[in-house]
């Protein structure tokens, strides 16, 4: 019953998407029709998701997808999370995210301009119809299993974790959020757009970036404590797939300021909008087509890969064709003079150049092995050292650019004035040059130049940003956008501190421990007390009991587990972490000695200085983007006119997002 109902809902959603596309893209857009269609599409998709959830809760193993991803012993929360635990369900989630974004875009844009809202929704309808057809015909989550299975195959134990339950929805909302700037750009190309559209698009970009950041942070955090390796980023192609749209969105968010307020970079902004969406599609393709084998991609079907590639090509070439045909519609309404070399405009251009270069490097390292393989030129992989080597010199300049960038005036500025504004920052960095190496040498015994440079950058950004915030507060307040910028840039600094410290001073010891044995690490002493056992709802675990004693003398118990889940022949490691703001101690069981009764185990023990700052930084960036999106200015309907005469004052500067 549920299967048939789900099919019908999916078909309704598909038809609604087609109607929505038609109604929005005809010569005279039909706002009312589009609205009705968008609502029906959302009802269909969300209804289908709820039905699939009900099927999981009721252990309806007559659905092939449920049988493959659930089990009677699976706890309720994970049975619900299993809705997006496999390919079909996550594509349905993708569609649901699109529906949600479509409704928000409709709600936000119809207040400004009905026919532009309809055209945007028309473009979103094209996306919805394409992906909807993909789900219905190649990845149907409601496909029947006849006869029904007695018992399901259960959810991959890797995914049985609270962090994992939230990771896909956030990530997909972020991914799919790129569809809104994409659709708004194409809608402008398709039938023209009112002057204000470059402003209305900004909150969508910001929210998409925020959600994508939350999603990535959660995934990274999950990998840290579940995968049993103690790493926070592996340069796995699947991770790269989410990083690329993130970088593109980050670049887009910044360049949209110049586009909106000064009419700069109209074509580049459009290109980046298309690029971010295509990268998000590419990410979906990489993760879901089966070209990669990883925790994210289970069974795969080559048909899906080719259909998805066709979708990507259609998005890319369709947009290019539109730009070629109607490119002049992107031109900004205001023709201002070219900016001087020393100007906010240049700083933003360099910011974009670097972020896109970073994105390109990730793309190269991710796709090259796939292309070589597809052309039968040999199988190879690009190791993490490549990404480390390339990203450091590309992203460090971004960090240092951030110090002056917020102080530079639009259009033109004077170097001497700028230096004057930057004085506190420069003093702080100068003090850092002399103090930091000594502090590091004193605390950690070693000084690495690269760590010092990164930390100097972080210090500079913190001081520069706080100084800016203080000046703004004294002269009338920060506003939501300013607050967002301050929070996000402080997040960047926190992130850099975390990465630099972990890379520089992290310790990873693989050791062999007998019960009663002791290992010294990072000023702490770890004692292996004993092994035990524990029964979970759908697993049995061997527990390793450790005691950690650090400088303050307090003994902290740490319990790490080796779990054997129902239906999965392989054990899973549950790490134990003693966490702190300045360091984590990470313990994970390896494997028992042969013969097992000897009681000795190999154990991973790691010292991770400032590792929490990485996720704190990303979360701050996300919160900053959310705050910027909340700026009331974006919701005001009256476009531009009031600011035509706005000339940047010498203290600065009207924005940030």
């Amino acid at each position, binding site marked *: 019953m549920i299967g048939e109902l789900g099919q019908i809902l999916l078909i309704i959603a598909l038809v609604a998407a087609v109607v929505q596309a038609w109604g929005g893209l005809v010569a005279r857009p039909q706002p009312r029709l589009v609205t009705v269609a968008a609502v029906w599409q959302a009802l269909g998709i969300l209804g289908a998701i709820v039905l699939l959830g009900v099927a999981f809760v009721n252990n309806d193993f007559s659905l092939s997808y449920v049988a493959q991803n659930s089990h009677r012993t699976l706890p309720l929360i994970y049975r619900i999370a299993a809705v997006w635990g496999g390919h079909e369900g996550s594509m349905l989630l993708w569609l649901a995210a699109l529906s949600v974004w479509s409704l928000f875009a409709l709600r936000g844009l119809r207040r400004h301009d009905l026919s532009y809202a309809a055209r945007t929704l028309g473009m979103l309808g094209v996306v919805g119809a394409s992906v909807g057809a993909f789900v219905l015909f190649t990845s149907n989550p409601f496909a029947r299993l006849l006869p029904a299975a007695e018992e399901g195959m259960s959810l991959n134990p890797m995914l049985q974790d609270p962090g994992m339950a939230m990771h896909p929805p956030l990530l997909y909302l972020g991914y799919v959020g790129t569809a809104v700037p994409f659709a708004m750009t194409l809608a402008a190309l398709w039938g023209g757009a009112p002057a204000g559209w470059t402003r209305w698009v900004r909150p969508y970009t910001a929210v998409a970036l925020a959600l994508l950041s939350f999603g990535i942070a959660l995934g990274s955090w999950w990998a840290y404590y579940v995968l049993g390796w103690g790493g926070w980023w592996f340069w796995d192609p699947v991770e790269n797939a989410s990083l690329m749209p993130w970088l593109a969105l980050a670049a887009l968010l910044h360049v949209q300021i110049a586009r909106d307020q000064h009419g700069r970079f109209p074509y580049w902004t459009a290109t980046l909008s298309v690029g971010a969406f295509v990268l998000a599609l590419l990410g979906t393709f990489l993760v879901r087509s089966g070209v990669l084998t990883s*925790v994210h991609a289970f069974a795969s079907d080559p048909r899906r890969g080719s259909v998805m590639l066709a979708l990507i090509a259609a998005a890319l070439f369709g947009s290019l064709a539109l730009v070629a045909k109607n490119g002049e519609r992107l031109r900004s309404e205001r023709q201002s003079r070219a900016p001087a070399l020393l100007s906010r405009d240049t700083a933003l251009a360099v910011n974009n150049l670097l972020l896109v270069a970073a994105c390109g490097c990730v793309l190269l390292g991710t796709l090259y092995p796939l292309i070589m393989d597809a052309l039968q030129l040999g199988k190879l992989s690009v190791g993490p050292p490549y990404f480390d080597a390339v990203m450091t010199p590309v992203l460090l300049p971004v960090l240092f650019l951030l110090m002056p960038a917020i102080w530079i005036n639009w259009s033109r500025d004077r170097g001497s004035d700028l230096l004057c504004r930057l004085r506190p920052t420069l003093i702080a960095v100068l003090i850092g040059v002399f103090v930091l190496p000594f502090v590091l040498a004193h605390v950690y015994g070693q000084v690495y130049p690269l760590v010092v440079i990164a930390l100097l950058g972080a210090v500079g950004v913190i001081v520069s940003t706080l100084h800016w915030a203080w000046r703004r507060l004294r002269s009338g307040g920060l506003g939501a956008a300013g607050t967002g910028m301050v929070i996000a840039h402080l997040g960047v600094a926190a992130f850099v501190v975390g990465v630099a410290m972990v890379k520089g001073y992290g310790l990873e010891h693989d050791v062999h421990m007998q019960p009663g044995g002791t290992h010294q690490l990072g000023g702490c002493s770890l004692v292996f007390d004993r092994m035990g056992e524990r029964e979970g709802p759908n697993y049995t675990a061997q527990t390793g009991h450790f005691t950690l004693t650090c400088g303050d003398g307090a003994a902290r118990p740490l319990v790490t587990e080796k779990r054997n889940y129902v239906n999965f022949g392989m054990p899973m490691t549950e790490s134990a972490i003693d966490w702190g703001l300045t360091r984590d101690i990470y313990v994970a069981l390896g494997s028992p000695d042969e013969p097992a009764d000897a009681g000795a185990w190999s154990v991973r023990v790691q010292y991770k200085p400032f590792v929490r700052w990485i996720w704190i930084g990303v979360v701050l960036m996300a919160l900053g983007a959310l705050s910027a999106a909340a700026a009331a200015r974006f919701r005001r309907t009256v476009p531009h006119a009031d600011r035509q005469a706005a000339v940047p004052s010498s203290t600065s500067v009207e924005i940030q997002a």
Partner: protein
Amino acid sequence: MSKVMTPRRKRLILLLLAGALLVAAGLFVKQAFRSNLVFFVTPGELATDGAARSKELLRVGGLVQPGSVHRAADGGLEVRFTLADATSAVPVVYRGVLPDLFVEGKGAIAQGKLDDSGTLIATEVLAKHDENYMPPKVQEALKGGQPMQKAAQ
């Protein structure tokens, strides 16, 4: 900035700067890229041209031969095992904690360099997340053997 700079010249300078940056970045990326490519080979391929590849960083994928896994007797972390495909086998030495999914008879990948005796000194051992995972190339190499076991419905 000098006063004779016309907007046109400024734009030219900007473009040149961006171009120079791009070229420098491109060269650097190429260098980093070349030195970090890791080639994936099967034990069978190593048997034919192993000597020529003794300096390269390699990823060898195969099945962990049942009964071949030996841990060091002195209680150290050294592990020896053999990765095999349908035609040949490569001995591997690794120091460290093996991944959870590393099991005899299943697929695994070892990354490292060959020593003079043809043993792979591995710096990294990977076993993929999915229990039914087999490196595609291993799958090719094993063709004609047992069909891959599909998990029960």
